[in-house]
């Protein structure tokens, strides 16, 4: 008893003792990332997007009738480590329930947690990616509550000293939502462990627990209350997803619960500095659900304000119901939960060295924001930029294609057009196909230099993407080289004209639209290989020659 109390008492002591120390050792932002952020901002104030931004803002204000929403988001990201945070149990989504458990994650007496080094690495990576200050010394705390999915009766988390804090994230809103660049603050990023999974059944008189997930490492990312609309919140979530995927720290899969967003929404009259009563929304399984859930919740709260029933807005947790497109009360908050945090006595401090952080920062990939700015500087449209940078596999494919000398706009058109359509149909990701960036660049070059027509190019693409091989190989094998010999085309044109005397008569009687018919026939005769420019030129001359 006394021992437990002692642990409890240590909390304030450690607060007091370390804070002075910690603030002084906080690492200044890495210059590399600072530079990126600055260049990002430098490109921001362009005349065109800004006016769109303003217009959408005005439209939103009109809809919200003198009220403004304030939105903050807590995001839990499940790390794609091989083992759990504090024990060596492997974790695989979809394993047989209660199969990957051990005395440590089951909270058996005497079992001691040992931190997985990969968790620290992931946390530092994400902290740097979110432009945070990294704490050179941080610690774990116990967050205590009773629930059947929590074997130990407490969750190991970080309370007063998170591993990263005071960061920000830059993003671009989708063009179809009015576009615009945004910067949202990140309050903190901390390491913690996940709880198990509870299964409820309507029919059974009991609930079921699967503790495979208990102890799996999470990073919790807390945003500043900087968002104002559903789309801003959804895009914030989507950007976090891109970042964790780019970094490879998580698969970011919302369906599997690897990325979960809890959203806090409040509404206040425009101009008021205090926040309104906040409502938490859970149970959103996609970014579009986040968008709609928030917009629904904002209008619900504004409605209550306007009806003089603002007191009906209470601090509570509401669940998004996708079928009715509404939020429903899940539970009212009865005062603040008392988690009785105290420092985790079984784990030492997490001490980082500058060398360690330098090493990680050197290994950081180019992040989505930097990619978008780079693509934007190539002269690509924002729609293209957002598409390419959305998926790091696509971005990587695009970059490799350019490295082989392809033109940016042409490569982008192929990727966004025919390739994206194929991937969507076949439900594949770009690196699961047989097409290589080198062959895409070859294809673009072959069209550019006139070896093949664009139409044939599309056919070759389908071949390459499904079966692999090289552009040259397919061209030779299928004898697809473009016919650019005027004499050969002329012969084909002559034959088609001779075969279609009726149409020729009509053409010469003024139905000049029939040139398309003739062109089609010649193209067909050439098996699509005739150079279309040459064909039309020769055809025109022949048709009009009297």
């Amino acid at each position, binding site marked *: 008893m006394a021992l437990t109390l002692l642990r409890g008492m240590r909390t304030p002591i450690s607060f007091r003792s370390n804070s002075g120390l910690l603030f002084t050792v906080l690492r200044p932002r890495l210059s590399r990332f600072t530079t990126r952020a600055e260049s990002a901002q430098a490109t921001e104030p362009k005349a065109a997007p800004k006016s769109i931004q303003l217009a959408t803002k005005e439209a939103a204000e009109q809809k919200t009738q003198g009220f403004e929403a304030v939105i903050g988001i807590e995001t839990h990201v499940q790390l794609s480590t091989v083992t759990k945070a504090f024990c060596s*149990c492997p974790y695989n989504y979809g394993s047989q329930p209660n*199969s990957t458990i051990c005395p440590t994650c089951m909270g058996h007496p005497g079992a001691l947690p040992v931190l997985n080094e990969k968790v620290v690495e992931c946390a530092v990576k994400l902290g740097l990616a979110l432009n945070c200050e990294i704490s050179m010394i941080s610690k774990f705390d116990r967050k205590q509550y009773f629930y059947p999915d929590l074997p130990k009766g407490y969750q190991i988390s970080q309370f007063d000293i998170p591993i990263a804090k005071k960061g920000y994230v830059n993003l671009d809103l989708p063009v179809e939502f009015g576009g615009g660049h945004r910067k949202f603050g990140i309050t903190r990023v901390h390491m913690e462990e996940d709880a198990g999974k509870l299964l409820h059944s309507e029919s059974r008189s009991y609930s079921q627990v699967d503790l495979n997930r208990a102890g799996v490492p999470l990073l919790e990312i807390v945003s500043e209350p900087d968002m104002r609309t559903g789309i801003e919140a959804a895009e914030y979530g989507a950007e976090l997803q891109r970042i964790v995927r780019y970094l490879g720290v998580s698969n970011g899969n919302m369906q599997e619960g690897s990325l979960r967003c809890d959203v806090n929404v409040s509404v206040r009259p425009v101009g008021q500095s205090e926040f309104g009563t906040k409502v938490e929304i859970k149970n959103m399984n996609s970014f579009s659900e986040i968008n709609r859930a928030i917009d629904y919740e904002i209008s619900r709260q504004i409605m209550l304000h306007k009806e003089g029933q603002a007191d009906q807005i209470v601090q509570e947790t509401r669940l998004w119901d996708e079928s009715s497109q509404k939020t429903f009360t899940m539970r009212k908050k009865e005062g603040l939960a008392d988690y009785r945090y105290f*420092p985790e006595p079984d784990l030492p401090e997490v001490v980082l060295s500058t060398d360690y952080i330098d090493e990680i920062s050197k290994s950081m990939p180019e992040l989505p924001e930097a990619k978008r700015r780079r693509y934007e500087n190539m002269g690509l449209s924002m729609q293209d930029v957002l598409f390419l940078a959305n998926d790091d596999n696509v971005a990587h494919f695009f970059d490799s294609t350019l490295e082989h000398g392809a033109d940016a706009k042409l490569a982008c058109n192929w990727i966004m057009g025919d390739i994206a359509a194929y991937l969507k149909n076949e439900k594949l990701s770009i690196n699961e196909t047989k097409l290589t960036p080198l062959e895409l660049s070859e294809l673009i070059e072959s069209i550019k230099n006139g070896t093949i027509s664009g139409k044939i190019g599309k056919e070759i693409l389908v071949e390459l993407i499904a079966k692999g091989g090289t552009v040259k190989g397919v061209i030779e094998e299928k004898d697809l080289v473009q016919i650019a010999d005027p004499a050969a085309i002329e012969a084909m044109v002559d034959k088609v004209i001779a075969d279609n005397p009726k149409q020729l008569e009509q053409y010469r009687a003024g139905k000049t639209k029939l040139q398309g018919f003739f062109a089609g026939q010649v193209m067909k005769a050439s098996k699509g290989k005739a150079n279309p420019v040459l064909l039309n030129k020769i055809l025109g001359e022949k048709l009009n020659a009297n």
Partner: protein
Amino acid sequence: MLSAAASTIPMLRLATQLRPRLPSARYHWLRPLSSATHVTPPAAAGAGSLEPPDLPRLAKAARISLSPQEAEEFEPKIRQVVDWFGQLQAVDLESIEPSLRAGTAAGSSLREDKPETFVNTDAIVEAIPSYDDPYIKVPRVLNKE
């Protein structure tokens, strides 16, 4: 369970009372709230300046049922433990470097991310009070946290 005592003593507020640590200044980082103004002589930080424990609340937080009589019996015992900390606050720590945690292990205490399957899961399953293969059976809980 008794860690809950920490919350009955409003020392958490100390977290906000940060002041720059001057190298020359006496640094009393263990100090009851009631006298947290400036440098306090150790004598002032004696026992009794801490709030007495709230037994019913502690018991509730620990999910332990105590009869009013039991609560009465425990109260002086726990108060005594709390008072020990009152005494600790008097310790002179002028020359002690503050530490985040007691017993800081120098060097790496991290584990490689290598899986090791615990073999004796049967024993774990056996120790589960109510098991409904392959799930652990618990009282029905819905939409609560």
